[in-house]
């Protein structure tokens, strides 16, 4: 891939990226969330078309209009969320769309399909039953099915996006074996992972992306974990982050021994008034799950949550909001906004009781209240009655922030508040978080971007695999330390 650039609206996702992958090699692609890894791979797989740049395979220039073109050219991608037909068997999945035909027209020869599936699995020494239904298989085996599917397409390049994120340790080890075997067969494997210790053991070459640019590419032998981490995070922190008078008061939120069915265990921390506590961790480390457990979305299995010394029993978001807790969720489309409803309705939705709209809503006053709180953070809308869907991403996010400003909660959780919004809007969000802290709110700020955590958090909590593994004072630590805690398994 040479000189690849790609822009989505105002966001430059990739800038002049060139990547060379040798046959018979495992090539690791690393970078922080949003560095452009997925975009680059989706261009290779034909999902996106690059604005500039070329893709060559075995020296032949290629243009992929869609994923089918890429698969035809020998590029198969295995996504983090596997796309298998759950109710079909392993063999049926492998031959989906290319079933061997039977004697009669429009029929499928199941016998031949099974034989060929067994042949394929045997050739690569995969131990899998082709007659098993995919829904009955453990995740590790599903990945094998995906790989077999790719091999059936005669893939020469296999892209694996975070393949171990949902695997047990044993399954992961087996997958590494499989990857090495495929390399032995002459395939190129592009391996995306946040788990650096995996990469150290598996990769022959490493390319590191940061902010849409390729910052480093070299054989694994010349790198180690600290060097990789340095390349990943090594950007300059500018005065993008406003200064704040830190005036930390008494403990407001206290979480003790918190566990939930969603996989977090024994989480304990506190947040004081006037404090912004950041939470770092890789995707799937359980950060959002901590927020969900506190906010009453997920059921707590153990643990206590206390606000201003008073223990709370919260079983639903309604109770959390009534107790003075707010959660700005990470996915504004799925769990945040009612898109076709007016902006003003979205702002007042959790606040009807608080602004005296029970038992009756007063529409004129509602518009005025929404306009007031909207103007405090400069939401750009044609009118408060316009549907939320008519706003840009950054303004939709502001709409949700306006909702929680109106709620005036004492403790506020912001889960990835700057995801998918442009730089200007990001700066406004940082300024707002600072202002809220100055007013004596306690804030938990979940983010995948270390620079912003270091820019505005007073302390940083680090999550890894459902556990709290670090509670660091920002001034006394480094991005490298945080990344190391988040990404590297202790021996």
């Amino acid at each position: 891939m040479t000189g690849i650039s790609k822009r989505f609206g105002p966001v430059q996702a990739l800038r002049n990226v060139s990547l060379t992958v040798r046959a018979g090699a495992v090539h690791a692609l690393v970078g922080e969330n949003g560095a452009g890894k997925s975009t680059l791979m989706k261009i290779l797989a034909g999902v996106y078309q690059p604005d500039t740049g070329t893709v060559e395979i075995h020296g032949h220039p290629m243009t992929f209009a869609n994923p089918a073109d890429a698969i035809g050219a020998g590029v198969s991608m295995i996504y983090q969320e596997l796309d298998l037909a759950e109710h079909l068997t392993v063999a049926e999945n492998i031959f989906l769309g290319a079933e061997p035909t039977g004697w009669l027209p429009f029929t499928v020869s199941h016998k031949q399909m099974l034989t060929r599936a067994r042949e394929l699995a045997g050739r690569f020494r995969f131990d899998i039953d082709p007659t098993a239904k995919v829904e009955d298989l453990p995740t590790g085996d599903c990945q094998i099915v995906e790989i077999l599917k790719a091999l059936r397409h005669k893939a020469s390049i296999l892209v694996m996006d975070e393949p171990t994120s949902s695997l047990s340790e044993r399954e992961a080890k087996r997958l590494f074996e499989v990857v090495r075997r495929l390399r032995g067969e002459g395939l190129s494997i592009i391996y995306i992972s946040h788990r650096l210790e995996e990469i150290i053991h598996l990769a022959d070459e490493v390319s590191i992306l940061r902010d849409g640019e390729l910052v480093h590419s070299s054989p694994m032998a010349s790198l180690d974990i600290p060097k990789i981490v340095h390349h990943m995070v090594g950007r300059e922190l500018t005065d993008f982050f406003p200064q704040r008078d830190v005036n930390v008061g008494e403990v407001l939120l206290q979480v003790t021994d918190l566990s939930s069915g969603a996989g977090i265990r024994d989480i304990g921390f506190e947040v004081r008034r006037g404090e912004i506590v950041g939470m770092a961790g890789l995707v799937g480390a359980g950060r959002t799950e901590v927020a969900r457990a506190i906010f009453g979305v997920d059921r707590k299995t153990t643990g206590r949550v206390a606000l201003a010394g008073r223990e709370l029993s919260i079983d639903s978001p309604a109770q959390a909001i009534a107790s003075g807790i707010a959660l700005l969720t990470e996915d504004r489309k799925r769990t945040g906004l009612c898109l076709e409803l007016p902006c003003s309705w979205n702002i007042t939705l959790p606040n009807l009781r608080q602004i005296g709209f029970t038992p009756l809503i007063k529409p004129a006053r509602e518009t005025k209240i929404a306009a007031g709180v909207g103007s405090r953070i400069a939401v750009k809308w044609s009118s408060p009655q316009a549907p939320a869907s008519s706003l840009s991403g950054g303004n939709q996010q502001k709409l949700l922030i306006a909702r929680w400003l109106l709620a005036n909660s004492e403790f506020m959780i912001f889960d990835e508040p700057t995801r998918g919004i442009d730089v200007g809007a990001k700066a406004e969000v940082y300024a707002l978080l600072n202002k809220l802290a100055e007013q004596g709110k306690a804030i938990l700020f979940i983010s995948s971007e270390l620079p912003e955590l270091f820019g505005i958090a007073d302390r940083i909590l680090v999550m890894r695999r459902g556990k709290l593994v670090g509670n660091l004072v920002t001034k006394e630590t480094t991005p490298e330390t945080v990344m190391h805690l988040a990404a590297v398994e202790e021996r």
Partner: protein
Amino acid sequence: MNKFARQLLPFATLVLLIAALSALEPDAFLTADNTFNVLSRSSVNGIIAMGMTAVIISGGIDLSVGSMMALCGMVAGLVMTKNGTIVPTAGLMWLGTLAGIGAGLLCGLLNGTLITKLNLPPFIVTLGTMSAFRGISYIMHHSAMYDVPNYTFLGQSSLAGVPVNVLIFAIIVAAAFFLLRYTPLGRYTYAIGSNREAAFHAGVNVDRNLIAIYAITGLFVGLAAMIATSRTVSAQPTAGISLELDIIAAVVIGGASLSGGRGTVVGTIIGTLLISYLRNGLTLLGISTNIQLIVIGAIIIAAVALDQMARAKAVESR
């Protein structure tokens, strides 16, 4: 096309329809008698459609309303006639009316509870209760009806020249309008239908609100059942067969979306009246009921198709 224009389209169709019918049949159509006749016939469907509007806005559906109406009528008939043994007395008629409406409320509560507590799709739950309610209606009096010859107040009498059922219809419309527009329950109904997860994360008690919506629908069905019983002076186990489809059609023609989050009381009334006037007009013109079915079918499809096109255009121009 904006929201206002979307509302305007069925309304304009209705006005055009009335104008055309007035021109074609000036003597029969545009009379107070005929107007009250149409409104009176619309009252049963219209009252139930008010509940259905809320249900559809919430992203649900209630297929059981037709059977529920039969069941409510039968419960009332049972009480009024002491299971078919006497001609109702005034006291028993009051008691029976309350029992019929109460039965509707209970049926609605049952629907709502099954949907939320078993976490089942409303389509499935109400498909099931549709069948069950009908079965109970038949069993109650061994497939026979209850005659209530003197139960005429709700369906056949007038106050100051206006039929009583039209008055009740107007009150229910006002109540539904108020409920959806000015109460948190109404607001939450829109939010749940638009994005249930988001509503939950914003502190909306989704289950409780959904149960309330289905219960209110049941209550309206109970009331409509009493009007229907009074109009025919009998409670029939076969009442309201396929009624749910007419009502869903009226709500959809009125601009509600079956995927939830959209719909208005005003739209539903226009949809209901459009169907009623069409039936009435085509009958006055001497066109058979079989043809009427085809015309109404075409209108349902046309209304939703136009709506979709307008939406696609709105998205493009954004």
